[in-house]
């Protein structure tokens, strides 16, 4: 968990550089308008910074991934036994060192590939393709939660509450699954909807507090993570609520078959319909943001709340709607975990860090549904491949977390990436 939370200070550091970037007049590529009034402070810096981070361009995203992989390679060198051994006599026989280095890095990344896309070391094509289905399985909740976070970004909000929203959603879905007795066609949709509703309400609470009192959503959502965690923990330790009858551990009873998301490709693969639901969510969110009046208002409020307000759009209400929909999407991710990936019962670590990873996914996907789909697949691959990297090469799985965190760092600091690749600003901001 600490690795996940470590991403937040990373984001904050990047903020500073993006800020200086936004304030550098000579870098703006246009002369200052002579009568231009300075913008009002409240929409000024924080808003500009947030926009530059959440809606950076695709090239910066790709380059950030590339840089992160590069830095990850250096880390792999440090952790590899052979490389360290050969480094002690690098001046005597440099070729040993370099071949060991090459071997370590290429093996690490090919293990990542074997673990996430296609296992080249088995003959049976069905077994060989299994890693890809694992990637999709991991990607499902990342995409769903990433869409939720991305949607709030588009409305000008930072939703850091993914963890709490997932926990509440998972608990609600689990409660319906365990306590309701119905046939699959009723039971499963009911459980999924209960989860999404719980997520929506938990996020909506943050939206309501922001709209009514002006409380900053970052603080509120972070704190609601803790409140949600301990609420679910409490429910899991009371048999009257959620705890399984025959245990002292904070866990619920296993999910009955009528509430489990069915396998998508048959019993030979772990891939369940949670991924299918995530794909549906991509289409729905695309429609909302690009084709609906509500999404138009989300974007208007996100880009310029003042103009939106002057045009009769109720900014506070729009915030609440954005949080409700976002919470439902993040809730879908939580539901996916409980009803699909880990069906042995609800626990307090059902979110598996997805609530925070989703922020990265949304950032990398530039808050666009299709971008989030791509970023979710990439991170799913990291998750699936990370284990095989550790298993076959002994490289700590944490390397993958480091790479993920570095991606955020590079995205949050676009000037850094531009400086490294000597991109001229015009090309980069097009």
């Amino acid at each position, binding site marked *: 968990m600490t690795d996940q939370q470590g991403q937040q200070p990373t984001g904050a550091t990047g903020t500073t550089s993006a800020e200086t970037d936004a304030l550098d007049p000579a870098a703006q590529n246009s*002369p200052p308008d002579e*009568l231009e009034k300075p913008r009002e402070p409240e929409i000024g810096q924080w808003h500009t910074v947030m926009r530059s981070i959440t809606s950076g361009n695709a090239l910066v995203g790709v380059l950030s991934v590339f840089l992160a992989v590069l830095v990850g390679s250096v880390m792999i060198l440090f952790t590899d036994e052979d490389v360290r051994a050969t480094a002690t006599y690098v001046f005597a026989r440099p070729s040993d060192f370099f071949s060991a280095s090459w071997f370590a890095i290429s093996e690490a990344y090919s293990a990542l590939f074997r673990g996430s896309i296609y296992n080249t070391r088995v003959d049976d094509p069905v077994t060989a393709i299994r890693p890809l289905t694992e990637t999709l399985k991991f990607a499902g909740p990342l995409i769903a939660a990433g869409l939720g976070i991305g949607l709030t970004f588009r409305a000008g909000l930072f939703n850091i509450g993914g963890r709490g929203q997932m926990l509440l959603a998972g608990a609600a879905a689990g409660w319906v699954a365990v306590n309701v007795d119905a046939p699959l066609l009723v039971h499963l949709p009911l459980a999924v909807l209960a989860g999404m509703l719980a997520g929506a309400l938990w996020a909506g609470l943050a939206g309501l507090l922001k709209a009514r009192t002006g409380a900053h959503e970052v603080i509120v959502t972070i704190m609601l993570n803790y409140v949600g965690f301990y609420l679910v923990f409490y429910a899991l330790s009371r048999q009257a609520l959620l705890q399984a009858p025959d245990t002292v551990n904070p866990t619920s009873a296993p999910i009955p078959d009528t509430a489990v998301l069915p396998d998508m490709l048959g019993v030979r693969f772990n891939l369940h319909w949670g991924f299918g639901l995530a794909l549906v969510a991509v289409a729905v969110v695309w429609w909302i943001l690009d084709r*609906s*009046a509500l999404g138009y208002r989300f974007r*208007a409020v996100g880009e310029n709340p003042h103009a939106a307000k002057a045009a009769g*759009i109720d900014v506070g209400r729009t915030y609440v709607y954005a949080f409700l929909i976002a919470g439902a999407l993040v809730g879908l991710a939580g539901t996916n975990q409980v009803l699909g990936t880990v069906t042995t019962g609800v626990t307090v670590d059902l979110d598996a860090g997805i609530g925070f990873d989703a922020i990265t996914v949304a950032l990398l996907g530039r808050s666009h549904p299709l971008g989030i789909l791509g970023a979710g697949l990439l991170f799913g691959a990291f998750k699936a491949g990370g284990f095989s990297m550790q298993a076959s090469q002994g490289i700590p799985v944490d390397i993958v977390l480091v790479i993920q965190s570095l991606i955020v760092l590079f995205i949050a600091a676009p000037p850094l990436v531009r400086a490294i690749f000597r991109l001229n600003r*015009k090309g980069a901001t097009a």
Partner: protein
Amino acid sequence: MQLALRDITKRFGALVANDRISLTVEPGEIHCLLGENGAGKSTLMNVLYGLYTADEGEIVLDGVTQSFDGPGDAIAAGIGMVHQHFMLVPVFTVAENLMLGNETTGLGGTLDVDAARERVREISARFGFDIDPDAVVEDLPVGAQQRVEIIKALSRDAQVLVFDEPTAVLTPRETDELMGIMRQLREAGTAIVFITHKLREVREVADRITVIRLGKVVGEAEPTASNAELASLMVGRPVELTVQKQPPTLGDDALVVDGLTVTDVTGLVHVNDVSFTVRAGEIMAVAGVQGNGQTELTEAIVGLQDHVRGSILLDGRELVGRSVRQVLDAGVGFVPEDRQVDGLVGSFSIAENLMLDRSFSGPFTSRFGGLRRAVRDAFAREKLAEYDVRAPGIETRAGNLSGGNQQKVVVARELSRDLRLLVAAQPTRGVDVGSIEFIHHQIVATRDAGIPVLVVSTELDEVVALADRIMVLYRGRIVGIVPADTPRDVLGLMMTGERPAGAVA
């Protein structure tokens, strides 16, 4: 000291802000730099002041070529700048501001405030300024703050003084006083560069006039040139400076404001017990210096202000207490004062901006909450042509348009709804002369369609050109409501709060 700029070129990416601009300013001369917003005047002065480095060309003072690495170098060389937005620390006293950046310290790092105080007194006495060195800057009126800026520049022995749009924030009387100060400085041998886009001021004080358009010097003019000649030089084509309009056909009382008081969160009163009536088919122009309650008045009508008392009746229906959306739906068109903040979403396309206040119902949304993009785009193309918005297409981001074209988009959006009232705040601020002409025509056409119009402007020219009646605001109160043909000097006096005999309150 003689200042010569030779072939100054400054580029921002592909944009050439200054294209081989040459300029000579003699000591004891007021040299006017005239040009529209975005013509490159401020860029040129920022080059002179060391804030930008010119890509080509040189700055020569008394025959010596200079190279400035920053404002510090420019100040040391004897160049002073009075910025449009004052570079003063509001909570410091005048003397403390004077020392800023040039602190003389005594033993153990103590500040020598006494010397600065003495300097303020000495310069004030020399030019007849009435400035107390111990006054806190934020307590001073705007005109006095500007004098502090001038004192600050003079205290560094500035031989060349640049005034960047100095009258934008001043009352007519303060403007006259500033003109007097500039003449005094000229007699004392200072070389003055006066940047402005206001023709009246230019003709009043300038010894020489250089006109800049699109980053290039397009000509020099004599102060004896007529307004029309100067305007056509600035714009590059003949311009109609007066608004052609027929006498109004007045209808019934449409907008009836009674006892309107607007306060902010801290309880500060911005609009104080204001009552007036606008009839259908009439333009009521609100005159006053910026910050005398005009912003709050217009925002209160539209529903953007939270603490409003009194009553605003539009065709008999109460607007106070309604949401912005309800007010707009009641038929109020609103051109906000700051289009970049309140009028447009810069990152949205022109087409998207044109539906900003019609996203709940109307032609652009379907029954199921979807966007009818084809309808919207056809509408946008039509408005683009009708309002002569110069843009590559309807997909162009509004933020990339020039000020004039941005304002045309806002005006097009507001005027294409069924209106019962138009509220236009600063409709032509920062807009090029050509677009001003067009927007004024649209406002008059709206009036002629029988719609009541409330126009707020800090430019007396605009007020006089558009108004059927003029209401002057001072510190949130109505000084008087007077006919459109009221002499300018009377209006100027009213803007300082003095009520002339015979004015209707």
